[in-house]
């Protein structure tokens, strides 16, 4: 069964990460690397994303057919999505276990649409 794990963090999390010494940052990355390795067989793909201040949004105005390119994210929020993983697991509880063991913040789990009408 497929799910997407969305790795979330607040602005404070980002600030804390930015304030880390190089050594601490290395350790944090090592933990994430270990998680990724330990779950390799269940991960179909995934990436860490550049911070939200690099985001660009294209907005469509359906009434006049125009699209406008704006600097910034689709949703302005205190929490951001810092990365994602697409996983294929035996059931939802296994997805929960993976999310629980993620070492770097909160995780939103979303089922994917499998049957299209």
């Amino acid at each position, binding site marked *: 069964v497929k799910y997407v794990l969305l790795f979330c963090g607040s602005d404070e999390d980002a600030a804390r990460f930015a304030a880390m010494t190089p050594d601490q940052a290395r350790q944090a990355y090592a933990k994430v690397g270990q998680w990724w390795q330990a779950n390799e067989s269940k991960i179909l793909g995934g990436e860490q994303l550049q911070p939200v201040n690099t985001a660009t949004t294209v907005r469509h105005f359906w009434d006049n057919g125009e699209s406008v390119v704006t600097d910034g994210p689709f949703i302005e929020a205190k929490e951001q999505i810092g990365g994602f993983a697409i996983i294929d697991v035996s*059931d939802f*509880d296994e997805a929960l276990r993976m999310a629980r063991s993620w070492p770097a913040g909160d995780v939103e789990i979303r089922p994917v649409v499998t049957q299209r009408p």
Partner: protein
Amino acid sequence: LVETNTAVAAVFREEAGRLTAWLVRTLGDFGAAEEIVQDALLAALEQWSVDGIPASPQAWLRTVARRRAIDRVRREIRFREKLAELETPLPQEPDNRLELIFLCCHPALPIESQLALTLRAVCGLTTTQIARAFLVPEATVAQRIVRAKRKIAATRIPYRMPRDDELDARLAQVLSVLYLTFNEGYLSAGGNEAARLEVAEDAVWLAELLAKLFPREPEVLGLLALMRLHLARAPARFDAEGQLVLLRDQDRRSWNGALIAEAVACLERAGALRRPGPYQLQAAIAACHAEAPSWAATDWPQILTLYDMLIRRAPSPIARLNRAVALWEVVGPEAALRDVQALASELDGYYLWHAVYAELALAVGQRETARAAELRALELTRNPAEQGLLKRRLAADAC
């Protein structure tokens, strides 16, 4: 009619969960299974109220449910396979109600939905009954159930026993759903008395079922003992005029001694397993009260020790507030008042904090403070029985 209702409730409790569990397994679709069982139960309610309960209510319900399930699978591709399964008589199967309970109490569902789903799918309550018991509109309950079923289907929440390493946490979740259900029925006053009592009894029945299925889980036994101890004292909680009576003033002769003995035996069985936990400790505290001949002759030092153990395992400001009441009896009001004051910011929105604070303030001679706290307590409770009690107390202070 009341007797019929009780008899019907008993049949539903015994049959609904088994039937749902069997259908979920056969159809592989929780939402459909749950709806079919509800349909069958509603049909039963209608027909049995005219013809009386049939000789074999079990067979009656299963026939109706099977017929509806067959109607449904005919529309499906895999229908031959499922049809074959539906047409074989229900074998003496293992009890799958446990899997069903774990599904309904999955932590990925909102807690209100866990309560409603468990009562519907496992105990066979109708949406109307749940709404009446929880004092919420029927549409709200219906919506909670629809959303929860949608989430179960979309997220594919599994229908199976939790893994061993997850069992403790999942079982704790189930127990908290049962206790919330029980409290909703038993502790909250107002609304439809009978409907609420029924829900409390459903919660007890579920705890008994769990105790049967998990005979070596002491917290299950602890919760069961706790519920029985509450129920045993239920007749004394309200006086002839329907006013709430505090434990201190209750007529202890009207407590159900047999039920207390049963609860204590249950608690002893739990204790023998040597894994204490919050429900066992709360039950032990309730047992101290239940076995005491009077408020004054209660073993307060023992209760204080039990609260300390409880707070160490499951720290909560409410447990600390209750501990303060025991401290009052053991040490005196000044010490208790200090502890209660320390909880002010955490429990400011909780009417009982203000009620206890008022009593303690009065005990040390701070009449004005006490009165202000009583007024605040009155403001904070919407429960008519509790409002009545506070009003009587305010009137007494004024004399």
